[in-house]
């Protein structure tokens, strides 16, 4: 007992004040990119051709954050002249097209569905399905339950059964072998229900695009309400998106 108490004192109180106070992530973290629209064409083209995810549109000078894995290659290649990644982790969007960004993302809170806020604003129970996810997005969703983030204080929980859920959170590029199980889980959730796609894989196929074994985009199977980009998305990106969309 004494040992338990000693540890309790040593550990202290660790839960973040976010969203009441802001959190500044470390410099090397790569969140929302800023794009210089008058960057020289040759640099833009070079970035577009070297991008491992082919996520850059050189004509429009936009990046598809649904495909981007935030490796930061374009920032390094252009030496910041075309792209710089900021530490702004609030990159979730409610519309897929918003992720094709020139550096600006609309405020997520302005694009959420009013009836979702009314229905789920005080209590949101989510069923997570990993559909061929690599366990990175899953891990960074799981940590929301740890004391630092403490998702439960916002009335949001991950539940064990789709029958107890208000919505589904999908990670992974939806392999051929997981498609049926995913759709059955979706069916099992009572209406009205929300669908959240987390990570580059669920949004676009991510690193696995081109493989005949996967699906390039959850929204080709079921309608998606909330897109949270990243590889994986940072826990704060997940938290920011959930709070702004539902609260």
């Amino acid at each position: 007992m004494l040992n338990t108490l000693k540890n309790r004192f040593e550990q202290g109180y660790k839960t973040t004040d976010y969203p009441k106070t802001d959190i500044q992530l470390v410099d090397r973290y790569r969140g929302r990119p800023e794009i210089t629209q008058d960057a020289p064409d040759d640099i833009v083209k070079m970035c577009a051709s070297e991008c491992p995810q082919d996520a850059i549109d050189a004509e429009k000078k936009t990046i598809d954050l649904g495909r981007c894995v935030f490796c930061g290659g374009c920032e390094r290649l252009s030496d910041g002249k075309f792209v710089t990644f900021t530490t702004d982790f609030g990159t979730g969007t409610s519309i897929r097209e918003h992720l094709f960004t020139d550096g600006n993302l609309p405020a997520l809170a302005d694009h959420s569905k009013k009836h979702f806020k009314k229905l789920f604003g005080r209590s949101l129970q989510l069923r997570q399905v990993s559909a061929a996810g690599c366990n990175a997005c899953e891990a960074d969703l799981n940590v929301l339950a740890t004391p630092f983030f403490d998702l439960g204080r916002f009335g949001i929980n991950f539940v064990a059964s789709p029958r107890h859920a208000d919505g589904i959170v999908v990670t992974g590029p939806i392999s051929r072998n997981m498609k049926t199980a995913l759709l059955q889980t979706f069916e099992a959730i009572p209406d009205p229900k929300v669908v959240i796609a987390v990570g580059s894989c669920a949004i676009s196929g991510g690193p696995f695009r081109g493989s005949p074994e996967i699906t390039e985009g959850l929204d080709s199977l079921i309608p998606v309400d909330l897109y949270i980009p990243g590889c994986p998305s940072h826990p704060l990106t997940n938290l920011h998106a959930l709070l702004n969309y539902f609260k």
Partner: protein
Amino acid sequence: MDTGFLKISNGCAIPRSDIPQLSFAEFRENALNIVKGGGKVVHYFGYKENGTVKLLAVLRTDELLIAGTDAPDSYPSFTNECEPFHLFEREIAEQFGIRPEGHPWLKMVRYHPNETGKPDVFDNDYSEDIPGRYDYYQVDGDEVHEVAVGPVHAGVIEPGHFRFNCIGERVFHLEIQLGYQHRGIENLLTNVDSKRLPIIVESIAGDTTVANATGMAQAVEALTQVETDTGSRIIRTIALELERIANHTGDLGALSGDVAFLPPANYFGRMRGDFLNMTLLLCGNRLGKGVVRPGGVRFTIDDEIRNELMRRINELEPQMKHVIDLLFSTPSVRSRFEGCGTVSKGDAEKLGLVGPAGRACGIQSDIRREFPTEYYQKFEIPEYYEPSGDVYARARVRADETMLSIKMIKTLLENRIETQAVDFGNFNLSPGSFVVTVNEAWRGELSHCILTGDNGEIARYKIKDPSFHNWNGLSMSLRDTGISDFPLNNKSFNLSYCGFDL
């Protein structure tokens, strides 16, 4: 004794023409002799060459050995004589339609059609979406019942199917069927621009990002004759050990939660985040995506970051020690951990268990000591094991390894780390070559193999996650164990679904 196999070195490329091509009978006899004599199977896989299928085995004694042969359409199974081949033979049957006759349990591995167009060995119809056409192993008896779990599980966790045969609470047998996570990675890697290689490899298994990226980078470096500098080897080693600590810490917390002792569950969970945030500080990604690239590392550690890492690890070290002490000194934890899910050393050897799961059964192998890469030759990794083979042993091994890894990182952070950040460019691999890399990932022996074709293209990319060896260990641990202890045993192994399914 001439085994017919060629000795090779970890991470050194050889011309494919140097690989001994044996008759199938010789290949079979020699491979069986080496493994029966205590050798381990690192790889045994098929590949296509000029329209025919060939087989290649990489075995491990105190050195790495390789030989190849032409694949027959069918052959007498190795597994009947030597169990560690069992899953490798099933994989070859699935990927190339080659039947190991008399295999004691020939069933699909990942549920996909084979590449040769030969009749499917398992009579599967792949137009069906769900990998369901399989009769699970059944136990007969009036009071025997089955429990089916998955592929979608109760937690935030990857998919797989578990089928228990029980009498009351007692489990006779657990069968695990995976394949739901299959993304076709090995084939994808032979078809994509080289710029995509690191991004795909880093997503084989997100919790093993650094180890997979390191295994790939070592292979590419060997095939491009690139030497990495000392600084980048140190940074890779730090990143590998941070990955090990974060995962072990998370699992110790999960184990504590599963025996309903919540203080350490929360403390370990929080500290795991602190270790992930150290990786974030290093490279901007909590899971280490982007640290390792062929040629070195993409992020350097300057003195400011080095001091900050040191400050954080110094703060965490006593906390880790105290929470580990709290966990293992609590009688209710000990009574649940001890004697639960025991795997004997003999079974562990036959199943070919590796890494912490093997060390918890008395198998002291550690690739960091036996085939050191990166900066590991500078460390004395102890010959260490726990003999009891139960949940306690698996938890104890992970706790001890965590404290060792913390010490290693502190040593590495003591002096300035000088290196140049490399960026990833296109590269030309040596044509007609072969390379294998082995590393001790946090779950155990992780290996990547590349065979290049006449123009330096990747003709075959073979990946073996340690979980490929260890899933059957979890099945074995459940025998004669209460089904309610499944979560505890599962977390004590914490194996990779996506690393297995590829």
